[in-house]
């Protein structure tokens, strides 16, 4: 469905050093520098997949999404979405896709969302029965009944995001690009949006490409992740495989009735955190059962869980690894 081959996106920025003389000089002669937003990435995504796009700020994620949706032209490389060349911006192509940007909105500000829905219906030429059916579904799934007839400016951020999603899906796109869709939303709204997106993908078989800084989004939605850093591909594969590779250890969380001695704990594994009520140990995969047995035998354990280390930690480790790698290479 989506095919990207050695995509490069460079653009020119003019340097402007501080100081009066430099400012004046920049009137007549400017020093250009090339920013390599995306510098040779390749990947393939099959129809119906849900893929997460991860990377630190400025890595090139949003740029890639914009190239895939035809908003930006690649500097070099080949990009194809469902057989189309996005940069041609054919009507047929545009009707199949949608880009949802968490920090910007397409809803008309002073009018109710229902007007934006009607406008989109006309622009995307959605047949009347299909429009009505889909609108009913979306209204029910996202609980929009009370929201769609109030002016957009009177809605809260979470309510706006729900309506924004509905407006984006009115024409039933086959490919959905989501750029930080849950940014700024409270926890329960994030969960609602995640559930909804997943359901849309499962019911319609649409392909999903999501960027987010919230690891919970990625963990909940994307079995496969592509990690981009400084415009190049860092990892492309299953999320749990990444976690296992970066942190081949598990976390054992113990809730104790009586505090335990530090010496006893250290014998069982690396102590990540320890307070009177709860102890977290980091233990190698193969030693987990041994540790669990010892803990149950020697400590007064009230509750015990075995978990993966948090995704945030894995990611920040991955990014800092890349940084040290590029710094040592430089």
């Amino acid at each position, binding site marked *: 469905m989506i095919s990207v081959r050695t995509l490069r*996106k460079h*653009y*020119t920025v003019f340097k402007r050093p501080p100081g009066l003389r430099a400012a004046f000089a920049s009137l007549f002669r400017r020093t250009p520098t090339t*920013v390599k*937003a995306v510098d040779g990435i390749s990947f393939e995504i099959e129809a119906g997949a849900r893929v997460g796009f991860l990377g630190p700020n400025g890595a090139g994620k*949003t*740029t890639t999404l*914009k190239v895939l*949706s*035809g*908003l*930006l*032209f690649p500097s070099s490389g080949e990009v194809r979405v469902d057989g189309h060349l996005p*940069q041609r*911006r054919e*009507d*047929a*192509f*545009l*009707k199949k*896709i*949608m*880009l949802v*940007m968490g920090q*910007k*909105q*397409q809803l*008309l500000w*002073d*009018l109710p969302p229902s*007007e934006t829905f*009607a*406008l989109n219906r*006309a*622009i*995307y*030429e959605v047949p009347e029965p299909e429009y009505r059916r889909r609108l009913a579904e979306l209204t029910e799934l996202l609980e929009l009944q009370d929201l769609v007839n109030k*002016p957009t400016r009177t809605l809260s951020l979470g309510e706006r995001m729900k309506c924004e999603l509905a407006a984006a899906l009115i024409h039933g796109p086959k490919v959905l690009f989501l750029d930080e869709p849950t940014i700024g939303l409270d926890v329960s709204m994030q969960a609602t949006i995640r559930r909804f997106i997943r359901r849309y993908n499962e019911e319609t078989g649409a392909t999903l490409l999501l960027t987010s800084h919230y690891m919970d989004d990625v963990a909940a939605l994307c079995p496969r992740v592509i990690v981009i850093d400084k415009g190049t591909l860092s990892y492309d594969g299953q999320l749990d495989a990444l976690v296992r590779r970066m942190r081949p250890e598990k976390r054992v969380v113990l809730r104790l009735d009586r505090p335990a001695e530090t010496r006893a704990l250290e014998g069982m594994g690396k102590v990540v955190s320890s307070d009177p009520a709860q102890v977290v140990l980091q233990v190698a995969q193969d030693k987990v059962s041994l540790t669990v047995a010892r803990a149950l035998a020697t400590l007064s354990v009230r509750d015990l869980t075995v978990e993966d280390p948090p995704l945030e930690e894995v990611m920040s480790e991955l990014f800092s690894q890349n940084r040290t790698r590029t710094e040592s290479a430089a």
Partner: protein
Amino acid sequence: MRTLVRYFRLLQVQVRSSVLLGMQYRADFLIDGAVSLFWTATALVPLIVVFHGRPGVAGWSFPEALVVVGWFTLLEAILEGAISPSLTAVVEHIRKGTLDFVLLKPADAQFLVSTARFEPWRSTNLLTALAIWTVAFVRLGRWPPPLGLLAALVLLGSATLLLYSLWILTVSAAFYVVKVDNLTNLFNSVFDAARWPVQVFRGVLRWVFTLVIPLALMTTYPAEAMLGRLSPLALVGSVVGACAFAWLSRRVWLGSLARYASASS
């Protein structure tokens, strides 16, 4: 054919949005109307001063010059009601970065952007233009010849097309500048010269206002048509010129869009 129908239907939807929006801000239109009237009235002062105690300037008498002013006022009405509101919205889009949503839609960006907002109730100047013409022709002691009126109607179409194209050129500049507030200023300062008959300007400026920024085709020629002294050559030239200008402005718009897509991140 199907495309035409489709775009016509789109136009209907856009107009409906505008009407709904306008009903939200009713007080605004009263103020806008009053400001327009005030502007038109005070802008007559220089004209009165120029013609005070003289029979004519550059071959135009006071009532004849009033006809030109009437056309200027009419075009201002079209500008305020149909052109400025939507194109100002583009400038806002560019500033907030939401132009991307327009570009994502499977419809021509220029069309979407030009039909986004209509505010017909701001066109109080329509009535003012009619009033000015009435005064002018009463003073002249005659009425416009029917053929002249027909030619004037044709020129109304070409003048509107020219006005629209000029605005598209101005807005295309919005892709290159970061702070866009001065653009409206620029447009208005240049357009303001159209209230004078083009023959008043001499030399280079007259050529500029006829061929480069064709203000003459927008107000002077239609006025001459109404006064029954427009040459057929000028009429044909105006229509052809308007179409050529429209084609040029479309090319510039498309070029600016392409550059926007290549240059931003």
